[in-house]
């Protein structure tokens, strides 16, 4: 029976839609930890080491298959993010809300991303995660909105969510928002 159902689902167009998301942010902000959390329990890896270059990860949510390009956030690699802008359906931008020192660097990278020709004119949903809120004296989401100038973002739906990638707090709501946005913009419209 299972086999038949699969087949039918395919036939009527209910097959899982595949979308690509780009996961960016400075190094050590928690990108790989976040993605790891989205994966099924049995596919998760136990020790997360700094990413060199990028890594392709897959997970599914609400009948949408996500292919996430988990980019390295180290200095040397940030200029290479742009190679992966083309053809992506959404962006997850992760900020270490405890790293106040580098918040200016975050702003700089974000501005560059938003001005990039492949991104500027596109109606792309951007999900901001204010990660590591468990640490004392973290910036609040409200702080971050002003620090990063999120309120000035035009033509792109965005959302900010405070998260703790270790426990997974906030991640569920966050990904739900992104999924709905992508479904609205890319899938239902077609």
């Amino acid at each position, binding site marked *: 029976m299972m086999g038949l159902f699969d087949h039918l689902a395919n036939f009527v167009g209910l097959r899982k839609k595949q*979308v*690509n998301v780009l996961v960016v942010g400075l190094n050590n902000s928690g990108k790989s930890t976040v993605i790891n959390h989205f994966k099924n329990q049995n596919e998760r890896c136990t020790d997360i080491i700094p990413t060199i*270059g990028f890594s*392709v990860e897959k997970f599914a949510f609400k009948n949408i298959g996500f292919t996430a*390009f988990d980019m390295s956030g180290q200095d040397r690699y940030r200029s290479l993010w742009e*190679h992966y802008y*083309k053809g992506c359906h959404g962006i997850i931008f992760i900020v270490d809300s405890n790293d106040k020192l580098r918040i200016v660097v975050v702003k700089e990278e974000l501005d560059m991303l938003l001005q990039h020709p492949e991104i500027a004119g596109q109606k792309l949903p951007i999900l901001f995660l204010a990660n590591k809120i468990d640490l004392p004296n973290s910036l609040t989401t409200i702080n971050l909105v002003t620090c990063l100038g999120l309120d000035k973002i035009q033509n792109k739906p965005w959302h900010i969510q405070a998260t703790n990638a270790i426990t997974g707090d906030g991640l569920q709501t966050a990904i739900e928002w992104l999924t709905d946005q992508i479904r609205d913009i890319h899938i239902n419209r077609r």
Partner: protein
Amino acid sequence: MSRDFHWLPNIPNIRKMNAFKRDKKEDEDGSNQFQNLEKTTVLQEARTFNDTPVNPRKCAHILTKILYLLNQGEQLGTTEATETFFAMTKLFQSRDVVLRRLVYLGIKELSSIAEDVIIVTSSLTKDMTGKEDLYRAAAIRALCTITDGAMLAAIERYMKQAIVDRSAAVSSAALVSSLHLTTVSGDVARRWANEAQEALNSDNVMVQYHALGVLYQARKSDKHAVIKLVAKLMRSSPKSSYAACMLIRMACKLVEEVDEGSEFLEFIESCIRHKSEMVVYEAAHALVNLGRSGTREIASAVSVLQLFSGSPKPTLRFAAVRTLNKVAMSHPAAVIACNLDLENLITDSNRSIATLAITTLLKTGAESSVDRLMKQIATFVSEISDEFKVVVVQAIRALCQKFPRKHAVLMNFLAAMLRDEGGLEYKAAIVDTIIAVMEGNVEAKEAGLAHLCEFIEDCEHTSLAVRILHLLGQEGPTSKQPSRYIRFIYNRVILESASVRAAAVTALAHFAAACPALLPNILVLLSRCQLDFDDEVRDRATYYCTILQQNADPAILPLVQPPQLSIPSLERALRNYVRSPMDEEFDISQIPPAQAIEEPAQEVLATVKPQQPRLTREENFMEKLLQVPELSAIIHDSILFKSSTVFELTESETEYNVKCIKHCFSDYLILQFDCLNTLSDQFLEDVRVTVDNQDIYTIVCEVPCVRLPYNELGSTYTVLKFPEDIQSTIITLPTTLRFIAHDCDPSTGIPDAEQGYGDEYTLEDLEITVRDQVRGTGSRNVDFSSSWENAATRGFVTTEQIFGLGANVTTLEEAIQSLVMFLGLEPVERSDRIKSGARQHTLLLTGVFRGGKEVLARAKLVLTNHVTMQFTVRSQDLEVAELMISSVG
């Protein structure tokens, strides 16, 4: 690359199988779907890689096209390659196995061209440690091509794990990759030696072999460690035949390098009784090539080869007879024992084996068997490939040397081969041999020239035609009937391409200059050439016509046939001259001769190399010296007169290794010291070699080597000014290596924060000899006797002395060799070759002393119980002449 490709059809993937079948059908139609690919179109298609979701089938096809193009030699620019590379990285999102493996190949191909290729590091480390076995080994190989020195630390942990992985493919891939990575960082092998040691115990034959390779790499620079490694493995004897073969090679190296190497020799000999044929062959091959092998070792090796030559396996027969062929050169007597077996191989259906058998027999056989064997070869020479035809030609060359009386048979055979089909290399080998036979045997000259004339009538290789025309110009005029060659040469002017026509014009001019009787007719021919539509041909014809008409005096010969000077040096000297006030005449004697292409004298097996014009050794050095500002300030207007050979100032296997080259200029001597620091825990600075000048030479400057990290070659220079008194230039100077040493961490090479300390190290003495200051003139056809007779009129002085040569010189050959070696003068008129059995001989030498002072020398040698020599030197400079005389005594 090919290894990965072979893999593909084995992947149990129905879709791939279908694709495979279809390809095959297309093949049958005779069309190759990749034949007319266009780079720009294919790269355009590669944009498909960016599409979501990935279509694996389509992408695999496009990627294959890209790989095909790259392997056809198509070049990509950096931007193209980088763009393609990044598009390809998107394919990591597909889980299609075939596609992923193609991506690895793409990474390897593009890794050296594209930028930022380290972007795939994490993706590859994930694959090499992941669950999919089909990925792991290939991912390791791709990873090592993108890893640079800075990234090495990041992958180190994974590589160490992979070396000891349970999967043999993974372990082998990691071991081989570590060897490749030594070019990125010298001590990778040493850092991973523990893991390699563990892998050496693997049950897998390949893993064991590769592990041994890494262990050797790790210890290579420490001879004692190598000895220990080899000695230990000799006892336990590796299970893997490949490893055993490698062990034999390592043992061979030790036998040659270590004084007490008898245990290694014994080990190699014991391998003759190994159960694997491969190992037995390796041991036999090693024994016959080792300088240290005695008759006993050679005999046991030859008996194994003899056995193999009767094997039903063609590969074994081939290996055996090929090796015997080589042994026949060095130990002909030992190979005679196999003659019967070799006779059986003459008719082997594998022509390569037959050829080698016959040529071996030719080397060992008696003069009487030559005709029979040559007939046998003639039956199938048209069936074998050019490569083996060259082997036959080389055997004939050796035969001509051995049996000069057989030259007629052999010459005819060569002429027949010359008429056959064949490529340039083959034809060039034949022509070389004919020329060599002519040189060695006056009787063969006329026949040889006739064959060559016939050959150029129908020769498709411009380079050969030009060489032969040149030879005709040199040798034809002194033949019995020079006029008969004119027609052959002039035919070239009518029928051939411009470069051949130009060579023919020059050859004609040689005849005209040397044979006055032919002059009027040749002038007519040359005047016709003045109408040629090629500039070079016309220029030459005009030039020769003018000088030949002007003057019918033999002194014009050097104008027709100028000495072959080094063009770059001539250009530099002329440029300097034009900048000078030009008060004095331009001194052409300062210009070094063009690099003579050294012919391998007796080495018949030497392969024929394409001969290309090249910078002389001195010109190459000069370019390097000029890049050092301190040196350039001193020498930029000078010409490098001569560079000595390289010699060691340290014993091998010392902490610091110093080699020296002496560069001689007319007033200066630059000492180039190439230094190597073999201590991984030391970083040297301000490295210099101080030379004790004995108050005779003036030290002009020292250029230290600023920093000398472990295992990198660095150079320091000392510039000396020659003393006025030429006699005192010959001297022995003590030298010392001085430097500031810093201790450093061997794994990173970064010096400790502490201050360095000065240290010094005594080197061997440095000798400055006559030879350093003298070189030949490089003009091949010097008329020695007229220069000798006319020397007085040109203001030369003569000095003479009689010597009895020491007890260690007992033959004329030795006397000639040591004299030429010692003085650095060049023998002319082939006077360094002596008739066998001769008891007296006259050696004629010419050369130039630094500063352009010409030297002529004549040594009359008589052999009684020892050798007596009357040695006469004529030179423009009395001091130089006396130096020659006094340094012989």
